[in-house]
C-alpha cells in the first residue's frame, strides 16, 4: 500500500499550460500517474499533449472525477489556486511553488483547516509525493525510486529527498511512498501526519525521516514517535554546521537564538528511540541493516 495516493488517484495540473506545469505534468504522466486534466483560466477547451484543459478546477473535477491536484503556478497566484482546488472538490493538493509570502501561507492553511477539514495540502515549496510504480505528483525524478517497499520516506528538503531515495534504491531497498513536505514556515502536511500514515500502512515496515534546521517540527515528531510509533525510524537532520541567524535557502531553515539547531533535533529524536545518522549515506546504510533484520 501507499499513503495519500495510489495507482488509481486521478490528478489535475493547475498551471499545465505553463512551462514548468507542462514539463512536470507530462513527466508525471509518463511515469504512469493518471493525469486527467489541466486547469488554466481562459484556456479551457484546449489540450496539452492530449490532456484536456479546463477553465476552472470545478469544471475539471466534474468532467474527470479527479481527486488530486498538482499546483504549479507562480507565488502570487498559488494561494488562490490552492483554495480554488479545495472549493472545486479536490481533496489532495500538492503545491511545489517556492517563494509564497509567509502570511499568505498562514491564511491559506487556516482557511483549509476551517472550511475544508477533509482536504490535505502537501507543500508549498515541496518536491511532491511519489509512490514508486503507482503515482508521482511533483518534480521528483521517477527513475531514482524503487517500487515494492518496505520503507516510507518523509523529508523536509527537496534535493535531500532525492538523495534519500537514491541511497535506498542503490542498495536495492524499495519505498512504499516518499513524501516531501517542504521547507516553508507553514507546511500543509507535517512530519507527524506522514509518520502516522506510515505507522498505519501495513506495507511500510520502517521509515526514513530527513529533517533540517529551523522550527520545532522535528522535536514534535520525536515526541509523537516516542508515544505512537512502533516501526523503526532512521533520521538525518541537515545543518549541523549552519550558522545561527542566517536563512539557509528555505524560508524555514533558520536557527533563531538557541532554537532550531540540528543538534537539538538530533538529541530529541535519539531520545525517542530513533536511529539518528550523521549523513545521508550513513542513514541509507542503517536502513539496509534494519530492513535486512526485519
Amino acid at each position, binding site marked *: 500500500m501507499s499513503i495519500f495516493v495510489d495507482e488509481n488517484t486521478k490528478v489535475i495540473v493547475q498551471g499545465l499550460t505553463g512551462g514548468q506545469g507542462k514539463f512536470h505534468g507530462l513527466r508525471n504522466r509518463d511515469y504512469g500517474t493518471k493525469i486527467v486534466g489541466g486547469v488554466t483560466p481562459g484556456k479551457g477547451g484546449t489540450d496539452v499533449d492530449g490532456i484536456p484543459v479546463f477553465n476552472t478546477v470545478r469544471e475539471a473535477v466534474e468532467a474527470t472525477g479527479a481527486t488530486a491536484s498538482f499546483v504549479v503556478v507562480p*507565488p*502570487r497566484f498559488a494561494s488562490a489556486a490552492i483554495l480554488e482546488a479545495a472549493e472545486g472538490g479536490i481533496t489532495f493538493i500538492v503545491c511545489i511553488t*517556492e*517563494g*509564497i*509570502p*509567509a*502570511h*499568505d501561507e*498562514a*491564511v491559506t*492553511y*487556516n*482557511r483549509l483547516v*476551517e472550511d475544508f477539514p477533509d482536504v490535505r495540502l502537501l507543500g508549498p515549496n515541496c*518536491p511532491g509525493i511519489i509512490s514508486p510504480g503507482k503515482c508521482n505528483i511533483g*518534480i*521528483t*525524478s521517477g527513475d*531514482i525510486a524503487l517500487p515494492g517497499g518496505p520503507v516510507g520516506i518523509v*523529508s*523536509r*528538503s*527537496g*534535493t*535531500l*529527498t*532525492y*538523495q534519500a531515495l*537514491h541511497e535506498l534504491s542503490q542498495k536495492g531497498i524499495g519505498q512504499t511512498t516518499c513524501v516531501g513536505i517542504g*521547507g516553508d*514556515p*507553514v507546511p500543509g502536511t507535517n512530519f507527524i501526519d506522514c509518520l502516522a500514515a506510515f505507522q498505519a500502512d501495513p506495507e511500510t515496515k520502517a521509515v526514513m525521516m*530527513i529533517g*533540517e*534546521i529551523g*522550527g*520545532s*517540527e522535528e522535536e*514534535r515528531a520525536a515526541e509523537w514517535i516516542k508515544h505512537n510509533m512502533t516501526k523503526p525510524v532512521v533520521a*538525518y537532520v*541537515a*545543518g*549541523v*554546521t*549552519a*550558522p545561527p541567524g*542566517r536563512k*539557509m*535557502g*528555505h*524560508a*524555514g*531553515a533558520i536557527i533563531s*537564538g538557541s532554537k532550531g539547531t*540540528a543538534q537539538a533535533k538530533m538529541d530529541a529524536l535519539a531520545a525517542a528511540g530513533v536511529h539518528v545518522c*550523521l*549523513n*545521508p*549515506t550513513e542513514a541509507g546504510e542503517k536502513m539496509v541493516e534494519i530492513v535486512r533484520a526485519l
Partner: protein
Amino acid sequence: MDLFEYQGKQYFARYGIAVSPGDVADSVEEAVAVAERIGYPVVVKAQVKVGGRGKAGGVKLASDVDEVRLHAGNILGLDIKGHVVRRLWIERSSDIAKEYYASFTLDRPNKTHLGMLSAQGGVEIEVVAEENPDAIAFLSIDPVRGLDLETARRWVHEAELDEVAREQAAELLVKLYECYTAGDCDLAEINPLILTPEGRVHALDAKVTLDENASYRHPEWEEYRATETEDPREKRAKEKGLNYIGLDGTVGIIANGAGLAMSTLDVVNQVGGSAANFLDIGGGANADVMAAALEVINSDPKVTSIFVNIFGGITRVDEVAKGVLEALSRVTINSPIVLRLDGTNAVEGRAILAPHLNDRLMTEPTMLDAARRAVSLANA
C-alpha cells in the same frame, strides 16, 4: 530582511503607529540640523543591526547643540560588535513613566500568529520569558480572522498595562498587527513601548524583519534594500541570482537545493574540513548559473578547493557539466574542483566531463568520497 531602527519607525508610521519625531543624519552637521528642527533634548542613536547599542555608547542624550556635536562625532564611525556606525537617528527625547513590550510573529508549531505583550518592557523579552513567564500575555491569532479592537482591549487588560495606557495601547496593537500582516513582516516588535508621564503611549524602538518573498507587492522596500550592508561575496552572488552565504573555511561549496547544500557543509565538516560558503544554485540551474557560481567561489581568496555536489532533479546534470566547462574556458579557476554528479542526466553529464578530467578537475562516485577528496586537497 532586517530593518534599521529608523526604517522600522518609518514603516510603523506608515500604519499610523505613534513614534517619536525624528530624522536620520549621516554627519555631525546633519545631526545638528535635525536637532535644531525637532527641539531639545534629543537622543542621538547609532543605526546598526545589532543589539547592545546602549552599552557600547551608541545611544546618548543631548540637551543642546554642543552635546549633539560631541555625541554625533563620537558615535559616527564607532564599531559596535563589528558594525561600524554610518548613520544616526536623532529623535526628540521622551520622558518615560512605564516601559512595555509588544510584538507579533508567526507561531510556526500552531500555524497561527503569536502576539506577545508585557507590562515589563525595556529589557530583553527572552530574559522576561525565562525569569518571569507570567509577565507575558500571549495571544494566539487566527490569520483568517485577524485582531480586532475588542480582543486587543481584553489583551491589554490581561497583560495588566496601566489603566491610563490601555485604550491607546489596544488601538496601537491593532495598528501594529496591521503593519505586521499587510506590511508582510516576519517580526514586528516594539521594545520599549512607552507610557509618558503625560499619559501618551508610543513606540520608542522598532525592530522589523520583512518577508522577502512578499517583496513583489512592496515597491517601497526598495529603499531598505539599498541600505543593506552585505558581504561583497554575497552581493556579487545575489546579482547573479545565487543563494550564497559566506563562511570562514577553505572548501568552496556548490550544491543544488538548500538541504543538499547544508548537508554538504556538514559532510565536509565531518571529514575534517571546513566550508568557505553555503551556495545553493537552486532548482533548474543551467550552464550559465553554474559558471556564475564557480566564478563567485573563485573570487574568495580563502578557497583552496571546490566541491560541486549535484543531485539532478529539475536541474539537469549535463547542463551543470557544460557550465563547469564554460566557467573553465572563461576564467582561470584557482582551486582544484571535485564533482559528485547524480540524478537527472548524470550519465550524459559525466560523459561531457570525461575528456577534461585531470588533477584540477575530478569526479567521485559518492558525496562522502567527494567530500574526502575536496578536504584533502584543501588541506594539502
